[in-house]
């Protein structure tokens, strides 16, 4: 028996009888969560080790993963989706989070007028559903409607316009930027909250030492908000490696043109559920879900056990 358990018993000497109400309070949440979330997750991981052999579901060990990684038919799709997904994530880290931090930094300037209005307005896209966001941008970027070329004409850049969503080399970048546009609100809000949390004394002390403006942001504020940037990064990571909806609404389940915007979420959907002439395959779907699970688990663990522990936290 560990020390904490002993302490527990000593701390609660009065209520010794079975406290049924604790079980009653916990049961509904525990049951729904376990039955609908945890068990299916475990079952999916288990299914990834099984496949049809001569018409019967049989244990095949890691064979599904071997097929996924090296079978000429499937592996090309898988590696393509994985590398697109990595690019998708990198674009978010390079554009969404810095832009979010910049907006938050500007919003947190003391006595800025209309700050609440800017904040609310910039958060609007985050609330819209992917269907709305996907189609609005499809229309705006469409060469038929001419909004984007018309706007570029105003600044004399019309010759640079191209149907970005329709070209294999630019489609992934375009879709990623649409997603960035939608989600900038999240880093903005979290970083904004962290910036407001910095005590005035710290900033005043910095001012007394002659550190103001830009150098104050880089030398004082940025180190103080690093933990929040860490949280934003891990949220971005989980969200990106689990993304599906936006690609599906903008480019369809085939994630065209020519698979150039295919990510793990759309690959999972097609593989598991089937699409057009492709049959749905439960075992391979489960295998892809298992790979996504391992990727997300690895990212979250890296954050929890390595990055978060090394990060310096300041107590005020």
């Amino acid at each position: 028996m560990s020390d904490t358990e002993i302490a527990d018993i000593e701390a609660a000497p009065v209520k010794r009888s079975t406290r049924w109400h604790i079980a009653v309070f916990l049961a509904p949440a525990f049951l729904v969560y376990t039955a609908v979330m945890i068990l299916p997750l475990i079952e999916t991981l288990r299914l990834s080790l099984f496949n049809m052999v001569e018409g019967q579901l049989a244990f095949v060990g890691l064979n599904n993963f071997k097929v996924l990684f090296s079978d000429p038919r499937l592996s090309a799709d898988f590696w393509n989706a994985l590398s697109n997904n990595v690019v998708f994530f990198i674009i978010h880290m390079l554009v969404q989070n810095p832009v979010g931090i910049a907006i938050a930094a500007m919003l947190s300037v003391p006595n800025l007028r209309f700050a609440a209005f800017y904040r609310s307005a910039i958060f609007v896209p985050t609330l819209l559903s992917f269907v709305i966001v996907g189609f609005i941008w499809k229309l705006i970027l469409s060469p038929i409607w001419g909004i984007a070329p018309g706007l570029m004409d105003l600044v004399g850049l019309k010759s640079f316009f191209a149907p970005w969503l329709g070209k294999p080399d630019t489609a992934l970048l375009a879709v990623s930027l649409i997603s960035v546009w939608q989600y900038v609100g999240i880093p903005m809000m979290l970083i904004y909250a962290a910036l407001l949390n910095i005590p005035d004394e710290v900033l005043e002390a910095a001012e007394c030492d002659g550190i103001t403006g830009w150098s104050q942001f880089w030398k004082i504020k940025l180190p103080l908000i690093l933990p929040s940037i860490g949280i934003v990064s891990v949220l971005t990571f989980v969200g990106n490696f689990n993304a599906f909806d936006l690609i599906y609404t903008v480019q369809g389940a085939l994630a065209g043109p020519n698979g150039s915007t295919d990510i793990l979420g759309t690959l999972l959907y097609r593989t598991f559920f089937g699409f057009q002439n492709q049959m749905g395959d439960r075992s391979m779907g489960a295998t892809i879900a298992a790979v996504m699970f391992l990727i997300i688990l690895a990212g979250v663990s890296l954050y929890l056990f390595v990055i978060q522990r090394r990060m310096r936290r300041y107590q005020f």
Partner: protein
Amino acid sequence: MSKARAAPLRTALIHLALIAYTVVALFPVFLTVVNSFKSRNAIFREPMAVPTPSTFSLVGYETVLQQGDFIGYFQNSLVVTVVSIALVLLFGAMAAFALSEYRFRGNTLLGLYLALGIMIPIRLGTVAILQGMVAAGLVNTLTSLILVYTAQGLPLAIFILSEFMRTVSDDLKNAGRIDGLSEYAIFFRLVLPLVRPAMATVAVFTMIPIWNDLWFPLILAPGEATKTVTLGAQMFIGQFVTNWNAVLSALSLAILPVMVLYVIFSRQLIRGITSGAVK
């Protein structure tokens, strides 16, 4: 916070940048809503203009209301969202109370177990969830969506609510116990009313992903009778892709409820996200 530093140029630049980004954020929404009220010709000829009496037209909305069962989709979304939120709040608050109020063996472990779902998306279990729903005969029912969304919302709800419940005074609860209140009465009559602000925050956080989700409606309930607004709009737009009036009107209709809720709850939502900032 008090010193207004004399840097008018810097302030002007900041406003300029923020206004520019606000335009970027709102322009697409503006464009959609404005054009949904125009005739087809006007949409193409003058996409940026606001509707004038000569270009005003409701033909898109007429198509949407005639062709798609949007009222039905709205009802489905509303039922799924409201019931899921209610269950998340009730079950989540009960579990959060048990975890924060009582000391029992396995408390920490259970807390960690329930927090797993904050980081691991429920989507990854879809293969087995569908299998289970097929076995239970729940495919193409709103119940299947409600179950999934309840499970999805619980981890964050329990996490946030138990933080708040720790701040409820012990003296109050003990006074209730001395007055002979049962543990259930203490929870429902003393603690729940006190954590209402936190419940509102959790409700808003839970609501947005449920209302906007496309994945589970597509997989678990794609039938005509159980389509949610998000899925209904997606399918409708897919069919009417060349009828721009109808597409823009469908999009505007889908934006409307979210905007109404945002206007009502924005203070709650922003306070929830920035909480901790309020010292």
